[in-house]
């Protein structure tokens, strides 16, 4: 039995935990404001908000309900567009109308819900942040300018929020319905009646994290599959520092990582990279471990973490073992992992002060797209000599790659255009890209060269590389 609050009401369903939230909302509860656009998290028409208590704070995040198993929202508050409606239009809806930000209207509820998610977050109420909240919503009619104008207007509504809890502030100012003020208490009550452990399903069932990979183009099968849900396991939701190690639990999401003080303090430039990775709702749902286990040759975090020399701890619940992340990949979608194992933790050492890091990604569409090629580079320099360097790359071989020979070659050298040219030659010999929908082989080869050059331009401008004639 899965329990959660859907808008104002507690629902209890005996549908399997893997049942899709989208289908539950639309076809079991007949809340048709949540639309179906793509069923793979790429359009945002089905966006809902999921509220949960974290350290006794009520935190809302946007989810694409098409990739969300209902088990992942157990004990939480699910808000659809209907749950935002008041007798009069709420100010989010008003802003959308005033700016003519709705044409055919099919994507509109998704935008309204995402913008409500922005209002419910503690993000600084800037126009930029309001627009970031709708980076996962696709509109085919408006050309977005009117929606951006509405988003700017909505950010103005929040100027006086201060430190007040968002839900309280929004209810008080009639931006959202009154019932939001009682949700915190109701979730606490719901938690009391809930079992503290997740159903332990037989070992043969697959593990399920955020759903953003397993449900893509496979929702038919997934709904009928039983799975072992990891998403809500408290022990996997930890993100912390231990001595000099940054430890990421197996269910920590991309947004958890992005919002963590560890990242903000030690890797301020990461905030720019997160923007290039999928979209707000997908980042809210997707786990870092899922990006790794998905084994895509082009996983953004996998590529970053390889350059960070990350290690993973795999467990079957009883026995654990640690391996280097780069050693996990044995071939295309082949892992050094037994079916009964899942990622308990990912960790890497915080680098020293000399160490610098850069991540590059190029895709057909800069945001909300899968890379053609991505690459990360960590480097530490002393007196312009490379002390340590680690370059990783995705999209250029069947597995996410650590460019070992290239990195070894560059270690201990003073970088000149000539050296870089040779390093790129080595890189070209390490990779084996194929032509596919994300680009031709030649393009991927050229692009990797360009991204490595870009790493140097950004991390080691003192070399004054020409970069034009290699």
């Amino acid at each position, binding site marked *: 039995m899965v329990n959660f609050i859907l808008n104002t009401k507690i629902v209890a369903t005996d549908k399997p935990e893997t049942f899709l939230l989208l289908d539950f909302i639309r076809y079991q509860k007949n809340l048709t404001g949540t639309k179906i*656009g793509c069923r793979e998290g790429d359009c945002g028409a089905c966006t809902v908000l999921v509220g949960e208590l974290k350290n006794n704070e009520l935190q809302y995040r946007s989810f694409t309900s098409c990739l969300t198993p209902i088990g992942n929202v157990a004990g939480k508050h699910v808000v659809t567009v*209907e749950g935002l409606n008041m007798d009069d239009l709420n100010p*989010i809806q008003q802003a959308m109308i005033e700016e003519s930000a*709705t*044409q*055919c*209207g099919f994507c509109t509820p998704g935008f309204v819900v995402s913008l409500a998610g922005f209002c419910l977050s503690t993000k600084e109420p800037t126009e930029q942040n309001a627009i970031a909240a709708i980076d996962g919503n696709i509109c085919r009619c408006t050309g977005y300018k009117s929606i951006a104008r509405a988003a700017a207007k909505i950010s103005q509504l929040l100027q006086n929020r201060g430190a007040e809890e968002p839900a309280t502030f929004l209810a008080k100012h009639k931006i959202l319905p009154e019932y939001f003020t009682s949700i915190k208490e109701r979730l606490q009550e719901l938690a009391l009646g809930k079992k503290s452990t997740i159903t332990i399903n037989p070992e043969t069932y697959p593990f399920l994290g955020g759903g953003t990979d397993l449900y893509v183009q496979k929702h038919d099968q997934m709904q009928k599959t039983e799975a072992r849900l990891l998403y809500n396991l408290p022990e996997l939701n930890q993100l912390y520092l231990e001595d000099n190690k940054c430890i990421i639990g197996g269910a920590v999401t991309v947004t958890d990582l992005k919002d963590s003080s560890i990242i903000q303090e030690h890797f301020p430039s990461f905030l720019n990279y997160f923007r290039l990775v999928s979209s707000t709702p997908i980042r809210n749902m997707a786990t870092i471990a899922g990006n790794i286990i998905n084994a895509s040759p082009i996983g953004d975090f996998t590529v970053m973490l390889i350059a960070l020399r990350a290690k993973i701890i795999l467990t079957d619940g009883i026995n654990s073992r640690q391996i280097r992340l780069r050693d996990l990949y044995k071939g295309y979608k082949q892992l050094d992992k037994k079916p009964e194992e899942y990622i308990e933790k990912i960790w890497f050492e915080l680098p020293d002060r000399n160490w610098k890091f850069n991540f590059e990604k*190029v895709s057909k569409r800069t945001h*909300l797209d899968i890379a*053609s090629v991505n690459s990360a580079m960590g480097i530490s320099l002393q007196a312009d000599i490379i002390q340590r360097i680690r370059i990783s790359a995705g999209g250029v071989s069947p597995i996410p790659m650590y460019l070992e020979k290239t990195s070894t070659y560059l270690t201990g050298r003073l970088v000149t255009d000539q050296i870089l040219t040779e390093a790129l030659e080595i890189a070209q010999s390490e990779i084996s890209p194929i032509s596919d929908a994300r680009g031709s082989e030649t393009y991927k080869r050229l692009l990797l060269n360009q991204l490595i050059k870009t790493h140097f331009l950004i991390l080691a401008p003192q070399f004054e590389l020409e970069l034009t004639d290699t």
Partner: protein
Amino acid sequence: MKNIDSRTHTRGESVYLDDIPLLQGTLFGAAFPSPIAHGHITKLDISEAEQMPGVVKIFTYQDIPGENQIGGIIQDEPLLAEQEVDFCGMPIAFVVAESNEEARAAVKKIKVEIDPLPVITDPRIAQAQGALIVPPRTFILGDVDNIWQACTHIFEGTADTNGQEHLYIETQGAYAIPQENNGLKLHSSTQSPRATQQAACRIIGVPMHFIEVDVTRLGGGFGGKEDQANAWGAMCALAAYSLKKPVKYSLHRMDDMAMTGKRHPYSSDFKIGLDENLKIIAYEVTFYQNAGAAADLSPAILERTLFHCTNTYFIPNVRARAYSCRTHLPPNTAFRGFGGPQAMFVMEAAITKAADSLGLDASIIQKVNLNKTGDEFPYGQLAVSEAHACWNKAEELYNLEAIREKATAFNTSNKFLKKGVSVMPICFGISFTNTSMNQARALVHVYTDGSVNVSTGAIEMGQGVNTKMLQVAAQVFSIAQEKIRLLTTNTTRIANTSPSAASATADLNGKAVYLACTAIAERLLNFVAEELHTEASNVALKNEYVYLDGERTEWDWKRLILAAFLRRINLSEHAHYATPEIYFDKLKEKGHPFAYHVYGTAITEVTVDCLRGIYEVDAVKLVHDFGTSMNPAIDKGQIEGGLVQGIGWMTMEEIVFDKAGRLRSNALSTYKIPDIYSAPKEITIEFLQTQTDNLAIFRSKAVGEPPLMYGIGTYFALRNAIKAFNPATQIPFDAPMTPEKVLLALYSEEVAKLKEKHEQAVRNMAIS
């Protein structure tokens, strides 16, 4: 006035096809598509699928009681494949089951054996093999053959544009509900209720009055639901008629993308001749349209390509030839612009080729060749031109020279960031080029309490046409907008509708609403004049009152209506409108096919990141010819939306079919349309408001399609930016300009080296 659907849209209360509450016993359909692009079906085995839980019936062509034919212009498209499949995704069977999931599960159990036949994806190969949908068409003006010798400069080349997936966010679908006496009510997400009605009737074998098609609204259409909504409507109708149960089919996105046609890819050859003053005096162009496996609307689209072959330029000697080539792709179809954008891209490519070769900026050639009033189009119609007005206003208002200087300065001081600027003037003809389709009807009822219902043949798909219809009624009756409701588009209220297409929906239906309301208003004024013992010419309707000689009377709208009703005055009107003046003679390929043209000029500024090969559109600043806009908020939305759609077509939207004719860009994860960050950072729209009389409703010119073509400017601006980084590079005219093409052009020399060293296998992809 805001779009009248805004409130329900933002509250999630608007009803689309998949939101219609289901009747008890509703069954669900799913089509089984051909897994290969061309071949003979040797065996179709549905036995295992039939045994799947919940399956009620699996329809094949043998279960069609009427004619297995849904072709519109040409009867060449079966609903369900018989002996042969012609494209990957072609429906072969239609599974009906008790649930959507069961229907989809059963589809996977159908087995088909197909003897493969050769697959053609390239229109030039199809043409060479004589595989044409219709005989080629040729438009001729002047004498191009004898003018080449007079040209100072002659340039030749080829230009290609890829297709474009409509990506309406609401997928296709239909819901058929049996009625008494074998009738059917068919809810459909269609732009063309008549065509869907006709296709369904033909499949079942019943006259058209057996089926009522009803459309509340569409979650986007863009041409994709003009003819291509018919198949799903016909499948549901077939199943509902046969099983006597309601049957619904709302397509999964990937099925929609795999089974439906898209914007036509074109490959074209051009030859352009200029005199010493850079006047284009000769232009010869050959278009190879990739029509896909069936005609669909391709012949009409081909025609519009020819109509727009010279864009907004006056060229005295033109020969334009167009082939509609039959390939093994899903039948390509209408998409905003309807063949016009493809032609205009070739014209701009030809001018750019000339400019590049002469070391000039293309805008110098563009400007001196803009048409003016009285100039003849290659099809004989004389221009009533706003081309210079739009260009000059854009040039001055936005200070084109300063924009260019800024870009040049930027390019001098930045090594890896380069700006490019382009100017894109447009001229687009408004009307269905098939003259007979330029008709529409409206039904207006005034109820005894003064409230009003309006029905038209227009489909609301986000373009705000219902809002404009309401404005027309409110203006004629001079009553509050709240008193008027727009009803669904329904074939029992409005018969024989033309599709909502060709940018002409508001014009045609608006004029019909105007005629209907005016007829009722005239009867009301005659009646009240009699009551007031005066002539009808002395009374008027104004702000919900009857005015007599400019003075408000005691007769308010409510009193007027009730009194008129009691005096048995007809408070309803069904009106018919047909656009006057237009005609076209297909034998001579001459005539006056368009009610009017829409003009405009866009200046586009882009920045290319020359390290990574990615880019941003900094600004599009345009002057657009609105006539006298009756709803600037809606019209501005059409411009912004059309522009960004056009930019998508020209930049990131890349349809990829492999050589076997399988769609590789088959989901939103592999086919990318613009997101909020891809939209230009700035869009500025200046209204060229003219008072010139035209055939538009309230002189408010059509605005649906024309702005898409401003997007072509982005392609040429990107090209200019690339050349600022690598002046020696040769960039083929091949849209879209994806980041891949940008990077390969930026580093053309390195590409050659890399290819030599590393390319193991030729890319096994045919981008069609």
